[in-house]
Structures are given as C-alpha cells and as structure tokens.
C-alpha cells in the first residue's frame, strides 16, 4: 500500500504545473531554489561562528536554545496562516478498497515530511554538525537535534488540531506577545526558562525521548479527530463562498465599455490571484521608500527612474502583462458574442489608466523627498499611462498560456512565458535609458521631459495604436482559443 502512495506522490510532484514549464522558467526557478538552500545552509554552517563573534562571552548553543520557545510560538502562528492538511488529495481514494485508517495515516504521514518541517532542518542539521566539529559532546548534540526534530513534528500536528478555531490563533498570538512582554520588563525570564529546557536535553540526551511521547500523543489526537471527519461534508469538502454583489451601476456612464469594466472589476475582486495583483499594486507604491532613502542611489538617477516607474505602475505592469489570459477560462464564450473587440481592449486600457492615476494621486507624499523626485514620479506615471498601457495590450496578444483564476496568487507563475521576460525591455529599460542619456548628456530637466514626452506622444497616437492592436488580436483569435482551451 505504501508503495502505491509513494508512486502517487511521485507522479503528483513531477506532473504538477510547476514542472510543465518552459526550460527558461525551470532554470530560473531552479536558481532561486538553489539560492535559498545555499542561504539556509550558509546560515546553518556560519551561524555558530557568527554568534561566537558577536557574543564572545556566551555559548552559541545556549544562545540558540534560549530563543527556541519563541521559534515554536512564531512557527505556530506562521503555520496557522499558511499550512492546511492536504486532505483533498484522498478524495479519489475514498471509494477504493482502502481502509479509512490507512488513508488517515497517509494524510498525516505526508504532512510530517512537508516543506514546513524540512526547511528548518537546513539550519539545524549543519548547525549541529558544526557543534560536533567544535568539540561539543556528540551524543548530547544528537539528542538535542532529535528533540528539535520531534518538536517541529509536534508543532506540525498541534497546528492541525487548532487550525479550525480563530480563538486558538488569538491565544497563541497573545501568548507570544505576553512572553515577549514579560521578558522585556524583566518579570519572568522566559528565554532563561526555555534555554534551561533545551540545555538539559543537551546535558542528558535521554530527555529527548520525551519528544516522542509528545509528538505521539498529538499524532494520535489528530488521527482520532481526522478519522471522524473524512467525509465529503466534513474535512474533504470544498468551501463555497457566498456571493456578494456590489452595485456597479456607476460604471454605466462609460457606455459601451461598461459591461466589460464591471466584469473586470468583479474579476479582480473575486479571484485570489487577481486580488493579490490588485492589493500588491498598493505595496509597490512604497517601492520608492527603499530607493529614495538610500545614499547609494542618489548618484544613480537611472535606478531612481526605475523606482519611480514602479510606484505608479504596479497595477499596470502586473495586471497588464497577463491580458487577455485573465479571461482565458471563458475566452471562447467572449469570442462567440457580438461585440467590437475594441470595447474589450478599451475596458482593459481604461482600467490600467484609472489605476495608474489613483496610484499617482496616492504618491503625492513623495513630495517630501523633493520636487526632483516628484517630477520623476510624474514622468513615470505619464509614461505608464501613455506608453506602457498600450504596449502591454499589444504584448498581451502574444500570451498563449491559460490562467486558472481559482489558484492562489503568491508565487504563482501560471501564464508566464518568454513574453513576460521580453516585455521588461521596452517597459522598464527604455525609459531608464532615455532618462539616463538625456540627464547625463543634455542635463537640466531634459530627462523628465523626454520620458514624459514619449508617454504623451503614445497617448496622442492611441487611436492608431489601438487599431493596430485590435487587428493583431483578431488575427490571433484561433490560436488563442486553442491555447486557452488547453489545461495549464
């Protein structure tokens, strides 16, 4: 039975959409993963020496131990928000001749080796190895490591027990804050207490076996709870959100474009991924704070231009680059309705322009950094409105990847292809280059003027550009229908 499960896991992993990508994307994702692994390993290996150097008077192991209780509480909060039991996977197995108890063990066992439990080991294991090399008692260190692993498992299973109740989250957060508070005001020495517990494990490795008891009890509690709940109307059910309709009749003033605008607003607000894009665009507004406050960038106007473009362009860039893939699920339906394609494109354009304008209004506080910075943001906003909106619409006609709107937003690369990398050149690098050249060799305010002019000129030629873009979309209609019909 276990071999069957392992085979399923194997196929699920390698056939997931993460792997069905172009080679370029695979390489980039591979590099990212490697980067994080090296980073963790580096912290694990170097951690001991760094602590030794910063706090020469203290023992690095004891120092780590004293903060482990916070790690437990912090991890619980993090897991509460991010981790859920992968119960939906067993739905197709429920009707097969497999014992319910086996399925429950499978789900729980699978969670034991989840990403959340593995990632911290990239720190603890190298750290333990260094400790042994540095002459710590080997059996003590191994006992300590075992205790840590069991502790992670216990947290894992504790999380599933409390995951359903919001009050549990509240109590954990308040407990975490309380311990920090008690520590800070010197009422109760939590770090000392936590440290003593894990120091004791190191001194007497046999104590680590207690971890088995704790993890075992939590596991069996989970087992009992879950076994009662593996029914389609309990744990193995898809949550259905109640629909909320907001009156969008204000959009009717826009005439022919109104149905599409209303549709787009609902699209953005009712799907996870688009909602993330929308909310993230307000975070991009803060992008300037990183750049404008640092001395290093003061002499790099091109980089400041980069930041300025992002401040107002967060929505246009992130939403625009996947037009029309957002509508890929019902693209066939749209193509069988009678409307001018122009209206569909116009609504996307209006949306991008309105959002850029709103973000521009919200960027007024940047005046604090001086009028030069503000001129830069203004030039960037004009460029985003004039050039980038139109260019993204055009680039969108090259999108051939379906987007499943129901999947979540963070780290979701569905719909990404070479197009998304190529368009960065005219979108970001062109204005940066223009600004840099004119700022450096012509001076005065010519940099701002040129970037803004490109935007204004594009805006003046909008009608012609839109005609051209519309033709391209109509020409590519069949290819897009075919591509969007395929599973992502």
């Amino acid at each position: 039975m276990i071999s069957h499960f392992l085979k399923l896991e194997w196929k699920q992993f390698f056939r997931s959409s993460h792997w069905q990508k172009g080679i370029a994307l695979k390489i980039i994702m591979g590099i990212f993963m490697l980067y994080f692994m090296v980073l963790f390993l580096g912290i694990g290996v170097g951690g001991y020496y760094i602590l030794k150097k910063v706090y020469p008077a203290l023992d690095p192991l004891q120092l780590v131990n004293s903060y482990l209780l916070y790690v437990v509480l912090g991890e619980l909060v993090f897991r509460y928000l991010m981790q859920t039991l992968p119960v939906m996977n067993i739905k197709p197995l429920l009707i097969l001749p497999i014992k319910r108890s086996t399925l429950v063990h499978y789900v729980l066992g699978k969670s034991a080796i989840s990403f959340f439990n593995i990632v911290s080991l990239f720190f603890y294991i190298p750290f333990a190895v260094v400790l042994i090399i540095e002459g710590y008692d080997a059996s003590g260190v191994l006992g300590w490591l075992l205790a840590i692993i069991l502790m992670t498992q216990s947290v894992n299973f504790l999380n599933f027990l409390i995951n359903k109740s919001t009050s549990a989250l509240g109590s954990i957060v308040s407990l975490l804050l309380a311990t920090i508070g008690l520590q800070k005001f010197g009422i109760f020495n939590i770090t000392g207490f936590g440290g003593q517990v894990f120091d004791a494990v190191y001194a007497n490795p046999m104590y680590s076996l207690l971890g088995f008891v704790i993890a075992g009890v939590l596991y069996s509690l989970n087992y009992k709870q879950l076994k009662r709940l593996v029914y389609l109307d309990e744990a193995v059910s898809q949550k259905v959100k109640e629909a909320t309709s907001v009156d969008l009749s204000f959009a009717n003033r826009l005439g022919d474009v109104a149905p599409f605008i209303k549709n787009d607003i609902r699209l953005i607000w009712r799907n996870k991924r688009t909602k993330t894009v929308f909310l993230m665009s307000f975070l991009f507004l803060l992008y300037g704070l990183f750049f404008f406050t640092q001395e290093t960038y003061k002499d790099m106007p091109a980089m400041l231009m980069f930041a300025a473009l992002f401040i107002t362009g967060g929505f246009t860039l992130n939403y625009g680059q996947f037009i029309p893939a957002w509508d890929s699920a019902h693209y066939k339906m749209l193509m069988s309705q009678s409307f001018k394609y122009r209206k569909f494109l116009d609504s996307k354009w209006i949306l991008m322009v309105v959002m850029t304008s709103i973000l521009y209004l919200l960027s007024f506080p940047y005046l604090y950094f001086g009028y030069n910075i503000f001129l830069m943001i203004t030039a960037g906003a004009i460029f985003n409105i004039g050039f980038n909106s139109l260019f993204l619409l055009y680039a969108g006609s090259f999108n051939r990847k379906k987007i499943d709107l129901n999947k979540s937003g963070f780290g979701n690369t569905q719909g990404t292809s070479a197009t998304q990398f190529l368009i960065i050149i005219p979108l970001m690098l062109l204005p940066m280059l223009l600004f840099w050249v004119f700022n450096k060799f012509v001076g005065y305010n010519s940099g701002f003027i040129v970037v803004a002019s490109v935007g204004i000129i594009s805006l003046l030629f909008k009608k012609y550009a839109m005609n051209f873009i519309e033709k391209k979309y109509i020409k590519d209609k069949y290819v897009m229908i075919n591509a969007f019909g395929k599973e992502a």
Partner: protein
Amino acid sequence: MITIDTITKKYGKTEVLNIASIEIPTGQSFGLVGNNGAGKTTLFNILLDLIRPTTGGVTSNNIVVSKSEAWKNFTGSFIDESFLIGYLTAEEYFQFVGDLRGMNVAEVTAFIGEFEDFFNDEIIGKKKYLRDLSKGNQKKAGIVAALMGNPEVVILDEPFANLDPTTQIRLKQVIKNLTANSNITVLISSHDLTHVTEVCERIVVLDKGIVVKDISTSAATLKELELYFSI
C-alpha cells in the same frame, strides 16, 4: 439559413471532420448524434468560428462566418461550462450577456422571469457564483443565456446531459416552442436518442467525422437509430 460546404478539419495527418454538404433551412430543428470523437463539438465550434476548418466554409444567413462577425448578432450558443464566466453570479452573467445583446436591465429581468419554472428555484437569488453551481444548474444558466436577445440561430451542445428529469422535459418544450412559434433554427447534439428524435425534425449521424445518416424524423427513426448504434 445555414450552409455547410465541403468542410474538412485535419490535425496533422488525422482527419477529424469531412462533411460534403449540409443545408439547414430556416426554422428547422436539427439534431446531431454520434459517438464520442465523431466530431459533433468540432462541427459546432466551426459553425461558431471558434475553430477554422482546414478546407471549406460555413455560411449563416448569407454571411460567411469566418469572414464577417455579423452572424454573432443573431446566433446564441452554449457549448460547455467554459462559456460561463465562473466568478459571476447567474444574474450578473445574464446581465452581461444582455448588455452585449442590447437588452436593458428591465428587458433582462423580464426575459429571465419567463424561465422561472425552468430554473426551478436553483439559479436566481442563490448568492452563489456560477463556478460553485452544480453541473446541471450551470447548464441551465448557459442554455438560457444562449436564448437571450432574440437569436435566429441557437446552437446547443449536449443540452440534455447533466439535467434532472424535470428540466429535461421542460427543455424539450422550450426547444419545441422555439421552432414552432417562430422561425428560429435550432441545432442540438445529444447522446440521448429518445430526446433528439422527440425534439428534432431532422437528424444527422456522424461517425469519425463523416455523415453516415441524414434522416427526416418519423415514427420509425428511433428504431432506426437504435439499430444503427447497437452494433
């Protein structure tokens, strides 16, 4: 009304559709039957200009569908759930389609009101997005949306599949009314031989992309079809 002229569709070397000629007069109720892979959905997609045929063409009301888009104004269709917009409620979806077909809010509401029985309290006022409805209820919404805006041609792919018995019977009545009271041309496909013979005046059987039968429905048709398919 609709002329299908020497249509073929090839994917690589495999030919999935090869139809010499079908002429569908105005007001006919036309049924398409055939086993899986016979090319029913491909043919409907070609009629709606969602797929281009390798050779040949379709003319609807003297409009070549791949040349002009004017046919969209008088054609309503529902092929599968991808014709629904999952994140809208049924009401919003009807309003969206209504907007595109030039109906105002009152007209849409009145039109939807006519289908109260058909919906059987499962669609309107449910506070559910279309993506969260059951397959059968999604189909009900899609079929009604296809009838909006006084279409002259209605194309429905497998309209009876997933519907509950009551709705199947009601749908048959809806389709009969369409062709009886006005000059609406209805094209449906189905796996249920009883339903098509009951509803359609003419039945075409496809097998691996080729027309193998073209029957004017009579009392003997059901027997004939059953005999053909029970090989």
